[in-house]
């Protein structure tokens, strides 16, 4: 193959690689921006569901109930008092 063809092919290869690299960086950056936007938009739902409503599984602290007691009318099925 003539030398000028080889140089042209190498040049085309380098140009192609540069385009792919630039495209990858842009896609990565766009992903970071989109992830940030999604976190900003919906992060409060995650925070709300990971608060005191979820029992802690570690045994190094008193376990919080999954939900606090709810109000109810009338008598109870059982009584909780001292014995």
């Amino acid at each position: 193959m003539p030398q000028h063809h080889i140089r042209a092919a190498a040049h085309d290869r380098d140009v192609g690689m540069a385009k792919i690299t630039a495209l990858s960086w842009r896609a990565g950056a766009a992903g970071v921006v989109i992830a940030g936007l999604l976190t900003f938009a919906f992060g409060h739902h995650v925070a709300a569901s990971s608060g005191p409503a979820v029992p802690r599984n570690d045994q190094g602290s008193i376990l919080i109930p999954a939900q606090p007691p709810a109000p109810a009318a009338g008598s109870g099925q059982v009584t909780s008092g001292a014995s």
Partner: protein
Amino acid sequence: MTTSEITRDTFAVFGTTAVLLVTTPRAITPARAVADRVLAEVDLACSRFRPDSELARLNAAGGESVAISAVFADLLAAALRAAKLTGGDVDPTCAHALASLGYDRDFADVRKAGAQSPRLTGPVGPVGPVPGWGRVRLDRAGRRVRLEHGAQLDLGATAKAWAADKCANQIADRVGCGILVSLGGDVAVGGEAPPDGWRVRVTDDHAAPSWAAGQTVTISSGGLATSSTTVRTWTVGGRPVHHIIDPSTGEPARSCWRTVSVAAGTCTDANTASTAAIVRGAAALDWLHDIGLPARLVRHDGTVETTAGWPRDDPDDAA
């Protein structure tokens, strides 16, 4: 499941009343069988009033290392965990303090003895701080324990609640139903709860009727426990005393609360917190709020405080 399908069994245990509620009628017999087995194991392990219990043998061992069962190791670990999580306000080394107040036998006999017992009518001086849970050397893996410096154990503050948790968990796993276990007012639930939850009336005395002064709430998981200075009471030398010992003095706690109810992830933790709240007095409000535990605290005059999402009392249903 409907409310009408909920089936009940009530029986005596540990000198108090046990209640089982199941969501499937056919589950009540196997649930009772599981509960009987668990409760018998717990009684043999840690009754303070059975000479053949592991606890009695350990207290009589004079500081020697004693081999223990897996059940006793678990019960003691739960008691030590309660002590650690409350900074020692719930301490298992209060047996001597209780005995010095005459509470060295089944409580029904303590009340019967009353003024007839010279031990209960004479002047009783302060016993001082309890030895402290740091005097208990538990080798849980090796299943051995040793009590240092004359420490004597009473697991009454946690054992009943631990047994309620154990019953509820095992019944849910083995019988496959929704279950509520109440042991003298220490309530643990397991499995799938009824659609509207389990209705629990919180009041001073677990033996009070289900419409007694207090508040009705529902729970669907975990546990709920109530501690009070108004129920397990007797007199010593004309002085009224109760069974919740302040470890820092060795005396019955002088609390601004007459009754505290707590909901937690387990009945053991609920009972740990309700007992600690009685001992801590006014400081308990901030403590419960800071750790996010829903609680209802009743002062001696009947006024009520709540924390961390515990519902407010219905004005038409006063404490």
